[in-house]
Every structure is written in structure tokens, then in C-alpha cells.
């Protein structure tokens, strides 16, 4: 398949790019850092003999960034699927951010993703097949006093993915949404976490093994399904006292 991986230069995105190249998929890798993308593309091309294109673009909901992606994607031909393992959060996301910071969080976690999807959806609907894989965060299960804009954007993304799945239910377009728990990346580095962090490589293995499965929402690692279930049904009187 010809696949686009958005957010491919680090963490889960990089692990996914490696795993997908191992499965002999041709790739367009999108991330903000060109130097890292060049290194990853050379590595994947040499080790797995697949076509790897790169686009150093910070994806957002504007025509300019979408067109930069499209220009690079044309080298691959028809795009069969897009994976969005990207996210952007910041420690001062406490409800007091300025417009630029809010825009960046919303663009990176939702608006940019929706814009790119919206471009490719008509072609996928016409062919009647395609693959769209979205990644959310357990941080968006319930609103808390931290990661406020981030969680709102991720919850918006989840709603968008559900809508797409509904729209595409009569076709062979597979829409998957992973709700991710902690992963061992630079984002979690050095933090004391209440639950173990999964390795991006293991997550990528799991995701690639399940690319053909049709499901709406999947939790990774699996135990987060139960933690999130508990969180969702925690009464407000209790939840408001939780500090996490």
C-alpha cells in the first residue's frame, strides 16, 4: 500500500514508519524536522527497499500546509491510507494559553488532521476503500485541570473519527481510533507515572498487525480500557477531588 504517516520523526510515528516499511508499504513521512526525516527515510529505504518520501511540514488547517503534503504525495501515486500518530501538548496548558498556543495545539491534534483527511476522503469514497488510523489519548477521557486544550482537541478528533466511520460504514474504508495510554517517549521521559509506559515499538507491532481489522475504538495498552471505564463512571463528587 501507499501510506502517509503524519508525525513520523519520533515516538510511535517513527516506530510505525519502521514497521510499515518492514511490511513493504511505500511511505510518505510527515513531520516538522527535515533533518530527522531525511535520516529516517534513508534508513528505511536502505533496510527495507521501499519508496520513502518526506515532507517537512507542521500539519495545520491551512491550504499551504496541505498543498506541501500533496506535492510530495504525488510521487507515491494513489494514497491508500493515512495514519496520524501525532500529538502536541505542553505543560502550561491550564486554560490560560494565548491564541497562538491554542491554535498550535488544536491544529496539531485535530484541525490539521481533519483538513488532510477531508482532502483524501473523496478519492477514497470513490474507490470505496481506504485506511484511516487516528490516535487519541487517555488524557481526553475526562476533562481535568491540566492538558485542557489538548484533551478538548483529542476529544474532538475522536468525534470526527466516529463520524467518518459512520459515513464510511457501507464501504471498505477502515476507520480505526486508538486511545493511547502512556508510551515510553520523550514526552513521558523522567515522569513518575502511575501505570507502566508501553514501548512504541510494541505499540507499532500491535497496530500494524491489526490494520485490517474493523473496529471503532481500541485502547492500547489494553488495561486502559478498564481504567478509563472506571474514570468515566467516577461520580463528579469524587472526580473533582482527584489530582492527576
Amino acid at each position, binding site marked *: 500500500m501507499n501510506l502517509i504517516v503524519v508525525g513520523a520523526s519520533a*515516538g510511535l510515528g517513527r516506530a510505525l514508519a519502521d514497521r510499515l516499511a518492514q511490511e513493504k508499504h511505500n511511505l510518505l513521512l510527515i513531520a516538522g*524536522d527535515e533533518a530527522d526525516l531525511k535520516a529516517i527515510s*534513508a534508513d528505511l529505504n*536502505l533496510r527495507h527497499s521501499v519508496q520513502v518520501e518526506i515532507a517537512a511540514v507542521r500539519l495545520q488547517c491551512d491550504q499551504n500546509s496541505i498543498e506541501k503534503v500533496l506535492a510530495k504525495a504525488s510521487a507515491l501515486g494513489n494514497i491508500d491510507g493515512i495514519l496520524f500518530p501525532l500529538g502536541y501538548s505542553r505543560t502550561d496548558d491550564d486554560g490560560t494559553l494565548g491564541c497562538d498556543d491554542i491554535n498550535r495545539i488544536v491544529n496539531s491534534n485535530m484541525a490539521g488532521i481533519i483538513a488532510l483527511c477531508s482532502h483524501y476522503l473523496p478519492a477514497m469514497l470513490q474507490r470505496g476503500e481506504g485506511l484511516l488510523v487516528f490516535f487519541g489519548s487517555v488524557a481526553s477521557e475526562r476533562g481535568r485541570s491540566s492538558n485542557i486544550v489538548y484533551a478538548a482537541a483529542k476529544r474532538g478528533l475522536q468525534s470526527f473519527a466516529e463520524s467518518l466511520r459512520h459515513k464510511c460504514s457501507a464501504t471498505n474504508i477502515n476507520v480505526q481510533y486508538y486511545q493511547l495510554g502512556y508510551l515510553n517517549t520523550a514526552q513521558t521521559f523522567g515522569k513518575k507515572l502511575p501505570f507502566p509506559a508501553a514501548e512504541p515499538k510494541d505499540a507499532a507491532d500491535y497496530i500494524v498487525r491489526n490494520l485490517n481489522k474493523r473496529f471503532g475504538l481500541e485502547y492500547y495498552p489494553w488495561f486502559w480500557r478498564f481504567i478509563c471505564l472506571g474514570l468515566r463512571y467516577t461520580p463528579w463528587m469524587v472526580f473533582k477531588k482527584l489530582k492527576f
Partner: protein
Amino acid sequence: MQVQPRQFISFDGSTRLNGFEAKPEHYRYFDELSNKFADASGKRSRQDAGAPGIAAEHVQTTDTCENGANRKSDTKNAPIDSENFNPAVISRGAGLSYAAASFGEKVCSVDHAQFNRILNFSKEQKLIEVEAGISLGKLYDFLIEHDLFLATQPGHPRITVGGCIAPDIHGKNQFMDGTCINQVESLKLFHPSHGIIELSPHSNEELFRLTCGGYGLTGNIISCKLKLKSIPSNMAEVTLRPLNRIEELPAMLRASADKADFIYSWHDFNVRGKDFGKGFVQEGRFIESGSRPAEQATATRKKAADQTLKAETRGGLPFPIFNPLSVAIMNALYGAKGANGSSFEMSLFDSVFPIQNVKELYFKFFGAAGFHEYQVVIPESNFGTYIEGIRHALKRHSLPITLASAKLFSGKRDLLRFTGDGICFAINFARGEEASKLLKELDQLVIRCDGAPNIIKDSRLSKEVVAACYPEYDLFRSQLRQFDPKRIYQSELAERLAL
């Protein structure tokens, strides 16, 4: 730049130090590091800093770097732990060195794990360019598909290429292929005051020689071009030749050198009398093909890649399994396999990386207290004196020797590089009071025998012993200061040896 406090433990179990760790995922990190040091030195930008010492006159810096180090950095949102961050740094690869070369008290260890990509490859020219954090196992997996091979490699597949260059490690073929520096065509070194510098035997040669064998003290090795060697298949044939008297070892190694691609020996140092040091020499040759299917070799590699040998978990057992009885039994069993001489085929991977899978238990069997490896290179003419010295020392300090092994060496000793003409000889034993006394005697013995101990294998070696054994110790120190007067790159090893 995200920096976190961390307690580091040396792989041999000796050193527990508090330092800091940075886990970068992008080249942008090195930009941030440059800015950090520019800020610390009075807001001076790196571009204005110039290159002091060696660098001012001879170093050619790269103006536009494909790795992006000269690009404007995006530090606005980077969580910098400025309060705790000490402006001393050091690179860290797999963290499997016996000595504490990749960390130090209040030193920031830069984890190179994410910098592990293959950047360029030419089968015709037999050259590969890789980032320094790539593991030898990953590199092997790629090269074997092209019937190529990195000639000098240590014994574990998780060791990184940067971790080979920094201490200029050797393999089991040092006598014919030299040390790691001989396999490096060129490398890119990052230093906050100099940016990214390309080093090779032809460009910035002095700094190249200072970096290959510089224990990471000249900067972060970002990437390197490595020279490769052709091999006929992924199989090797190993012949075991019994050795009844250890005094005959140098002659036997020399005799094997003409017909082997790699050689090493095994000895039993726990028997007394005339059998002291008996054992066998292992002669390995690359062969055209073998009876073992390639798939099986691949499976072995994958299994090895999943192993979790770490400094932090090596000492999980509260007590050692090794004691005089268990070591005697182990050596008797191991020694029996070479007693009558035999030949067998094995995968090249297993022969290059003998310490993997179940054999990793060897390190864990020392328990929490840890172990010592005392590895020296001794001129051939003094080998008999050295062995006799060990024999007498062991009479005074009775310790079970878990491993005694030798390799043939060839070359000229310079700076702090572990090389030279002669026999490379290593012994392992458990850490403890008696072991410390034995080591003090061995230090004096190696000085008397005009030998040199391996700095990267010994976490308690003193600067006096190193200065006595390495004639260019002072030259190394002065060259290092010439290049980096502020001595930004530090480690426990550097501090202990006053480098």
C-alpha cells in the same frame, strides 16, 4: 532540552553515581545544547565562538550541516531544567561498558538510542554511514544481507557503534584488522563550542586520533562512515586446539594467525601445579557455506535483540552463584569441550557475539557485588613473567577465576588507545576485599612487565597506573585541553584518571 536526575550504575556493579540524563529524539537537541552553553558563557553564540586550541588552527567546521545543527533552534517550548543542569555532558550508548565512561556525578548523559539510523551505504565502495547510536546487532543484520561485515566488533550485539569508537575497542582479530579506529573512514563530532566537525585520517587528523580512543571526552560522536569487509557467508568454522602449557600460548597464537580470521583462547586458572592455565585456542574461519540454515541464524539474531542485559538489572541476584566449587565445576565442563580438539560450524553472528542469550547469565551470576575484568596487553617477551606473576599472586589471594582468555595483538601504543604488540590477556573474578588486594598486585605486575591495562574494562584503575603504563598520557591530556579548554565533556572515568 529535557534533563532529568538519574542514578547510574556501572555495568560491573562498581559505581553508583547521581547524574543527569537527557533523552533527545531529534537533532534539534544539539542546537539547544549549543545555545545552552552559549548562554552559560555570556550570551556568546556558537558561530562567534571560534575554535580554540587545535581547532583554532586546524579544525575545518562544516558551514551548512545536513544534520541541521546550524539551523535556528526552536527552544521556546523545550522544558529546560536549568536549575539542576550542570554544564558538563557526555554521550551514552548502550550503557554496557564495565567502566563508568558514559556518566559521572552531576554530569548530563546524552542518550544516543534514538540516533540509530543507517544514512548511506555503498556496496561497491564497502562503506556505510551510520549514526553513532546504532547497535552492532542492527548493523550486522543489514550488512550480512550484502555479504559484508564490520571487521572489529566487541562481544555483545547491543553495544553501539559510538560505544566502539569512543574507547577504540578491539575484536578477536586485532592482530590482522587493528582496533576500531582502523575501520573508521570519517566521523562527525559535535561540540558546543565548535559545532559539527568532520574528522578523518586526512582531515583534522589529530582530533580524529584524539576522538577514536578519547572516551567521549572530545564531544558527541553524531555519525560515522565505516569501512567494511567482504565475507563469504553467514557461517564460520571454529577449530579448538588443546593447550597443555600456558607458556606455549604465544607461539600457538602466532601459528594460528596465519590461517584464521579470528583467534582467542580459554584457560583454567583454578587448577594448581603444572596444569595451571591449560585450556584451548579457538581458531575461527569464515566459510563459503554451512550446514546450518540461514533462517535459524536469523532467528538467533532476533532472539538476541530481545535480550535485556542492562547495568541496572545485572546485579539482581543478592548473592553470587560463583564460588570455588561452582567455578571449578563450570571450568571443568567448559574445558572438557576443547580437551581433545574438535571442529564445528556455527553462525557468524554467534561467533562474533558470543555473549548473548543464556550466556548473559554469566554476568548475573556475580550477584549484586559485581565483578572485575583485568585485561592487559603484554609484550610477548614478558608474557611468561606476567603469567608467573599472576600464579604467585593467586597463591596469596585465593580467588576463583571465572574466565581467563587471550588474544593476539599487533600495533603501536599511542595516546590512551588499548593496543600494542603482544598478548592481550583478561581474567574475571568477583568483586570483594581479596579481589582489591589482588588487583593492586596486578597493577604493579603490569607496570613491571611493560604492559598496559584496558581503561574501558576497569572501573577502579588509578591515574598513577594509567600514567605509568601509557607513555602518552600527558600528551592526551594536553591535546584534550587544547581542543576544549573548558573541559565540557566529563565522566567518572575522566575524573578518576584526571583527564
